[in-house]
């Protein structure tokens, strides 16, 4: 139990993929224009990471060391494609919103990094939790960053929630300012870098206290 606790602490704080390992920046920077986008891609990534870690770990002894990276990529790519199919088939609006970024989870270094550095060396249960918590740690950063960018850029939070929960959820969207014309920088790519830098600074600040 304490081992899983330690894994969770690593994923969410000590080794957080988004603000400490700085892996998987491609989606971190590209998708986080709104909170819902960040959260959904984060959760999709967490699922991929948990499942790929859990499927690599039990067969790790059968994978020859020389070809382990191609095999890992093969497994990750297949899982991502399966998730991509499923989202396309059953949650069409979300598919439209996340579009190209779901297949891009394959190229997200954090997935391969956890498989290579954790799942290839550890038991199945702890590998599964490592993938899950690392993924959720990344999802947390994506959600925070998306939230900040959306708040400053558009003056709203949770816009696009109706894509996931259906049209009736659109009144959950929070509008903070009545007549807000938007702060373009926050939505554009530089805003993502600045926002991420602020998050890293904030984390380091809390750490040094």
């Amino acid at each position, binding site marked *: 139990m304490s081992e899983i606790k330690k894994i969770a602490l690593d994923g969410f704080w000590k080794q957080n993929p988004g603000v400490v390992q700085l892996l998987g920046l491609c989606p971190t920077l590209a998708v986080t*224009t709104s909170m819902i986008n960040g959260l959904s891609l984060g959760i999709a990534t967490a699922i991929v990471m948990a499942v790929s870690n859990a499927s690599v770990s039990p067969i790790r002894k*059968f*994978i*020859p060391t*020389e*070809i382990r990276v*191609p*095999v890992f990529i*093969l*497994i990750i*790519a*297949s899982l991502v*494609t*399966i998730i991509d*199919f*499923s989202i*396309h*088939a*059953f949650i*069409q*609006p979300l598919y*439209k919103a996340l579009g190209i970024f779901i297949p891009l989870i394959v190229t997200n270094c954090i997935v391969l990094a956890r498989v290579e550095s954790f799942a290839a060396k550890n038991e199945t249960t702890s590998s599964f939790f490592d993938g899950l918590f690392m993924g959720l740690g990344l999802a947390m950063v994506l959600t925070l960053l998306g939230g900040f960018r959306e708040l400053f*850029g*558009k003056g709203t939070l949770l816009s696009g929630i109706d894509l996931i929960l259906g049209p009736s959820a659109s009144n959950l969207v929070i509008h903070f300012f009545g007549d807000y014309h*938007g702060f*373009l920088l926050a*939505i*554009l790519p530089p805003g993502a870098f600045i926002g991420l830098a602020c998050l890293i600074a904030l984390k380091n600040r809390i750490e040094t206290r």
Partner: protein
Amino acid sequence: MFKDHLKKISSTAIAMIIFSLVASAALSSFYFITKSPIDESDAKAKRIFLNQVIPADLYDNNLVKDTISVEPTPLLGNKRNIDIYRAKKNNQVIAVIIETVAPDGYSGEIKTLVGIDQEEKILGVRVITHKETPGLGDYIEIDKSQWIKNFDLKSLDKISEKKWAVKKDGGDFDYISGATITPRAIIKSTYKCLLYAKENKKRLFTS
């Protein structure tokens, strides 16, 4: 020595082949499981989208299936064959939906659907894809602003050629200052789409 190497290499290769086979099997079975739901949800999304351009109560045919294919033409800006959807009531074509490409958006092409009825009036215009600046040029999307509804019920007879422009250029159309290239592109492409419908009226509206 050589034999040892060969053995090692072949066992590695076999492992790789087995992994590839398992992965391919998993992928193809998932492809077949999800194929029909994907087709269905694509068609549904398309139908919802088309209904924004032509209201569903105006027609009684299966809009998604009833199409004519059109070769590339400069008036529509299409580079490949595109489908024109025909809305019919009692087997009479009452309106068409034409996909139009505006090549001169602020950053690349803007694709729109233009619904035109048999009196050559615009029923509705919607943007399918664009790469305009988020938060600035994206007010052409119906989710962001009502601007695109400016086109509703406009026609070549009602507005002279010169008035198919933003107000800044002496035309009839509103725009948001700081983002005039985007509406200019759409106004131009919609105008050309109406010209196309006029020139090809027989082909489009004969059932």
